[in-house]
Every structure is written in structure tokens, then in C-alpha cells.
């Protein structure tokens, strides 16, 4: 299925958020996820199913002043 991830359209193979984070090669502890403008906390990733056309943002805290 096709989703928009961080502003880009990609083909997503994972069916749940946990899988997507893994698929992107990210350390889960550093990622903040937003699905269709709703923040999804890490404990809900496993139960969050990805649908075609979802807008997903994967963010992380970084250094900043």
C-alpha cells in the first residue's frame, strides 16, 4: 500500500506502526510517531494498523536551542 511518510509517498510493506519503524531502520526509543495528525505513543504502535493513504510522520528529538 502507498502511504505518505515524512512528506514523501512510499510503498509500505509493514501492516503496523511497529513494523514501519523497524522497516525504516530506526531505534524505536528515539522515535515519536504521528499518524494523520494524531500522536501515537509507543505502547500503541503494535495495535496501530496502517491503512492505504495514511499520513505518517516519524520524528525524533534532536539538539536545538
Amino acid at each position, binding site marked *: 500500500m502507498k502511504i505518505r511518510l*515524512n*512528506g514523501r509517498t512510499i510503498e509500505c510493506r509493514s501492516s503496523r506502526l511497529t513494523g514501519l519503524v523497524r522497516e*525504516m*531502520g*530506526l*531505534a524505536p*526509543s*528515539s*522515535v*515519536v510517531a*504521528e499518524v494523520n*495528525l494524531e*500522536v501515537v*505513543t509507543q505502547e500503541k504502535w503494535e495495535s496501530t494498523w496502517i491503512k492505504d493513504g495514511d499520513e505518517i*510522520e*516519524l*520524528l*525524533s*528529538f*534532536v*539538539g*536545538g*536551542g
Partner: protein
Amino acid sequence: MAKNDNDVLVLGGKSFTNRLLTGTGKFSSRSLISPMLEASGSQMITVALRRVDMGSKDENILTFIPDTVTLLPNTSGARTAKEAIRIARIARESGCGNFIKIEVITDMQYLLPDNQETLKATEVLAKEGFVVLPYMMPDITFARQLHDAGAAAVMPLGSPIGTNLGLEMKSMIKRIIEISSLPVVVDAGIGRPSQAAQAMEMGADAVLVNTAIATSADPVRAGKAFGMAVAAGRMAYLADMADEQDFAEASSPLTGFLRS
């Protein structure tokens, strides 16, 4: 009227005994953050939120910050109030607490804040229960508007971000300190401990320093120097030092008639 001996800065219901706010940007190694915090005594530090680099195995920056330090997520990267609001909500949802530094920048050349958008974001976020610290152009009327919008403090810039120019906006900041019932945190442009001390002597409630500490050859030492400077400036303010005297005393041409 005596100044309080138990000198704390209260923001969002939290008491801070240290008045240096630090930032996590631009460090050569993130492992320097924790020793820098310890050396400076800083009790609040800014972090930013960005889209991840796909494939990055970087550890969460939050793991480098001790639990005792209050996180101040900023909305850097936001160009509109809407974006700033969205970033603030994400930061809170992801467990960073309810402090937020609003930073809306549309001027990419000098990185100066957009006061109009900042005000809109402040209004919305204050109503949602955030402790809002807006980064602002030093403007007295705007400081009043931020107060009315529910800001917890105002953060006028000393000079443009990263310039190390110090208190270029001194006279405006002085006026804001004079009229503001909110704490005034001087943010941006503070390049040397002496400039931080000067801001505190003037009556600023706190100073935020990031670049000058992070980009020095020894950020831990630099952090310590800033911590000491802020404390010294604060103490001088509380000690109510006499101002510089800028005119000599004359004989009595204006008031002599009262004695004759």
C-alpha cells in the same frame, strides 16, 4: 520591599534556583550535555523536534539529559503558528512535559522571530495548558500582548541567534523588564559570560545560552563560566548596586532661588 533571600524563579509552578537556561544544539558530542549541565547548574534545557533521518540509529537525545532537568522543547522549524502548535502538541504527547518555547521564524536570513505568528501560537497553547515561553523581538507592546495571551514568560532576543553580539537590544529589553509582570528571559545572541551577567544585573529573570557554550572548545568549562556569570549578575541585581553616574554635580542655578 526587601528582596527575597530565597531567590527562586517560578515558571509553570516549578521553582528554579538556577537562572541559566541551556540548549542542546550544536554540541560536537552529545555526551558533553550532561557534564555541561552539571558544571553550569542549569535546570532547564531546550530540545528540538525533527523528522527522523531514515536509517539513523542515533539514540534519543533525551537519554543524555538527567531526569532532574526540565525539558523545554522548542518549535524551531515552524514557520507558522499552526506548525508551532502542532510541534508543541507532539512534544507534550511524547512525554516531554508541558513547557514549550515558541519559536516561529520566517526570516531565514537573520533568523529573527515572527511576532505575529508567535502571538497566535501563544494564545492557543496557553489555553491548552502549556507553559508558554515565546521567543520574541524585543517590543514592549508585544510583551504586553503576550502577557494577555497567557504566556508564562517572555524571551526577547539579545541579538540575532548565534551572533554572540550580546545585548544589542539592551535599551528595549530594559524597558520590557521595567513594564513586564512576567519573567523576562534573555534569549539568543549571548556570546560571553560578561554579557549574561550584564543581562542579569539589568534585572532579567534568566538567560538562555546555547551556541556560545556548545561551540566553545570546552563546553563544560564554558557552561560553568556562564552559570557563575548568571549567578553573579543576579546577586548584583539583588544587592541593588548603584548605577553609573553620568553627570557631575553643578552649583545651584536652577534651585538656588529656593534658599534665598
